[in-house]
């Protein structure tokens, strides 16, 4: 099976003269979790709405497997909008069936799938409850089911974890894992960087309607590695201050975080030097967190723009 690809080519959208998305290029491959990140007002929601065909781009094109988006039926797409909304007076099952049938499922099939998901999310006893009798978290789960009940090929989730307790977060992750295994396209937008770090394979960072970072999460982390190391020992590591060619960032009695300032200094040599004086319990490369990268980039970009 050929790989599923969703592409955005030079997509722009402006509202009342304000550019919300400008010349955006994205390429999302099936089977990877694509994280669309950015500060508020960066244009994430607009981008997702364009992928969902809720609004059309002013310029550029959106292609799924080389076909223009507006020619593809909506039922291949599933969407969890950031602002959740359900029919408050409807019962859980009838509403799920309604949304299922809107995506071409037969009523029977939609019912079966809905009950299956309700069961999986521990909500099967609320099948006939009215939506407005449910708690916020439960409504959130129902909203999820609305997004993937019809087994879409492209699933777009805007802030999926907000308002979910840890147990349900795990269940949701399992479901997303299944999508990933089916090589489907999965786009997640979030503000929670730890979530993105744990979940995403590919990251795209948008700021002020432009892409400022795009690539595999592992590669990005590598690129933004500050050449920093962390060492931990049972013995005192105070001698580290005397080693030339490194600069220490943080240190206490038994651990030390430092960067290698001199290019010539080889890591294995350094490792040996330390080992001679103290027993090493841990020695590792310090990965920058996505959170740090995000802040650093957005700040740089915002300042640069001024």
């Amino acid at each position: 099976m050929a790989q599923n690809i969703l592409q955005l080519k030079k997509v722009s959208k402006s509202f009342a003269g304000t550019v919300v998305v400008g010349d955006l290029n994205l390429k999302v491959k099936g089977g990877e979790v694509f994280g669309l990140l950015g500060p508020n007002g960066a244009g994430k929601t607009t981008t997702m709405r364009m992928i969902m065909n809720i609004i059309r781009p002013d310029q550029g094109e959106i292609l799924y497997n080389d076909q223009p988006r507006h020619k593809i039926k909506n039922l291949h797409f599933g969407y969890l909008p950031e602002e959740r909304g359900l029919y408050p007076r409807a019962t859980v099952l009838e509403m799920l069936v309604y949304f299922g049938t809107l995506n071409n499922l037969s009523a029977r099939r939609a019912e079966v799938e809905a009950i299956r998901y309700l069961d999986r999310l521990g909500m099967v006893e609320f099948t006939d409850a009215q939506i407005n009798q449910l708690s916020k978290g439960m409504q959130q789960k129902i909203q999820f089911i609305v997004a993937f009940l019809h087994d879409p090929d492209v699933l777009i989730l805007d802030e999926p974890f907000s308002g979910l307790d840890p147990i349900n977060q795990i269940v949701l992750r399992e479901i997303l894992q299944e999508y990933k295994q089916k090589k489907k396209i999965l786009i997640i937008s979030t503000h929670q960087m730890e979530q993105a770090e744990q979940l995403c394979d590919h990251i795209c960072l948008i700021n002020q309607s432009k892409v400022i970072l795009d690539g595999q999460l592992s590669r990005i982390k590598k690129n933004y590695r500050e050449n920093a190391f962390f060492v931990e020992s049972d013995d005192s590591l105070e001698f580290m201050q005397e080693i030339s060619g490194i600069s220490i960032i943080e240190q206490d009695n038994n651990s030390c975080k430092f960067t290698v300032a001199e290019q010539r200094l080889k890591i294995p040599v350094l490792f040996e030097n330390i080992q001679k004086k103290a027993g090493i319990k841990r020695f590792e490369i310090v990965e920058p967190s996505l959170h740090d990268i995000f802040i650093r980039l957005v700040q740089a970009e915002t300042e640069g723009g001024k």
Partner: protein
Amino acid sequence: MKNIFRIARWEFVTRFRSRSFLFNTFISPLLFISVITLPIFFFQYQPEVSTKLIGVIDLSGKNIEKDLQKALNHYYSPENRSREYVVMKVSVNSSGPYREMLSEYKEIKSRRDSIARLYEQIKAQRAAYYKNTKIANREYFLRTSYEKLQNTREEKELTDMELENFKTSLDSVYKFEALKMADSLLITNVLNAYLLFPHEFTKNGIVEYHSKNPGDLRETERFEKILQNIIIEKRMMDDHVEQAKVHKWLSPIYIKKYQLMPQGQKEWDFYAQFYGPLIGVFLLFMAIFTAGGYLFSSILLEKSNRVIEVLLSYANSIQIMGGKILGLGSLGLVQVLIWLLLTALFISSGIIPADKISYLTLSNALYFIIYFSLGFLFYGAIFISVGSLSSNEYDAQQINQLLRTVAVFPVLLSLIVLAEPNSLWIRILSYIPFLTPSFMIMRIPLSSQLITTDIYVTIAIMVISILFVIFVAGRIFRVATLMQGKKASWTEIWRWLKVG
């Protein structure tokens, strides 16, 4: 395409089950119909009425109160019920000034009477002298009695004049005292009303009616009718027409009203003919605004709770709009059909007499359905635009209220429509799409002929207007529903309409 029907089904089913649909279909038409028909019942079948005391001040001295009582008994005293009206002559006998004047008047009158008697005596004596030529001193007697006669006549004429003058002032005192009395009786609610008959009322035909509420048309019309008869009768009697002839000539006249309908002559019944179309307009209005209101609240709800975003990602805006219009439009049709069915049921079971709603023909029912559909589409599209533009429910409800007021406006003109359903102004007004359905639903059953041209013209106007408002609604709906918290400016709306 299937999504239109799925959305339509959803809208239909969720609303059909709702309590508000039940209320709008059964309770509120019932309430309305009872509210407007109850007065008719009160009007026609008044329960045991309390007897009304009517005062009479008669300055003509024709004993009019007796005639009045007789006529009132005749017309307004149904069998086995107490008399509705009791006539009472307003008495002024207890009034001091009047009594004084009256005794003086009587004195003058007796004086005049004795002079008159004397005059007659002299005349008779003189006649005897003339006839009997054998009386001695006849010449002398004739001459002296002539002088006496002359003097007496002059005295008689003078007393007559005095009496006449005194009578006028006595009358004015009588009138003043009687009015004072009658007013106090009216104020203390002893009298319901009193009638003042001036001296010459048979000649000029003017009678005064005094009451706390002379606006009570029912009462004044009754008195007008009865007095008309009494006065004419009096005038005839004055002209010495035979009593039997008078009665024959004055026997009451009733007008039976017939209306020429396409299917032939039909007896006219004001209440059925007028209230029928009025109830029709109300039901039409109810149907349009029940379904239109659902359309409106549905969009408002989906916009405010953001379901619209999910909905828009699975169905396009045309499907959503189309589905809602189709679903809620069918709901409205179902409502109309329920009403027609219920009416048919009531007729067949005899609860409603069939002749009372003879205007409800199959073709009129069909027109009702046509104008309902047109009105619903027109107002529905406007509701979609307003609903999707509104940033909060309060604003939206105000516009909704405004539209309702506009649509119900023709009911205010219903009496004019009844009098002349096809007058120029009414025709022009019914070409305004906002008013078309309400006006046409009144005009069609009220017109004596089928107003085919107007039906075609209004349907054409409605269809064009509907296409226009749906086009506008489509453009606005697509963009405005995703906006939140912010009010769209007119320039923005204009741009959406141009760009789409």
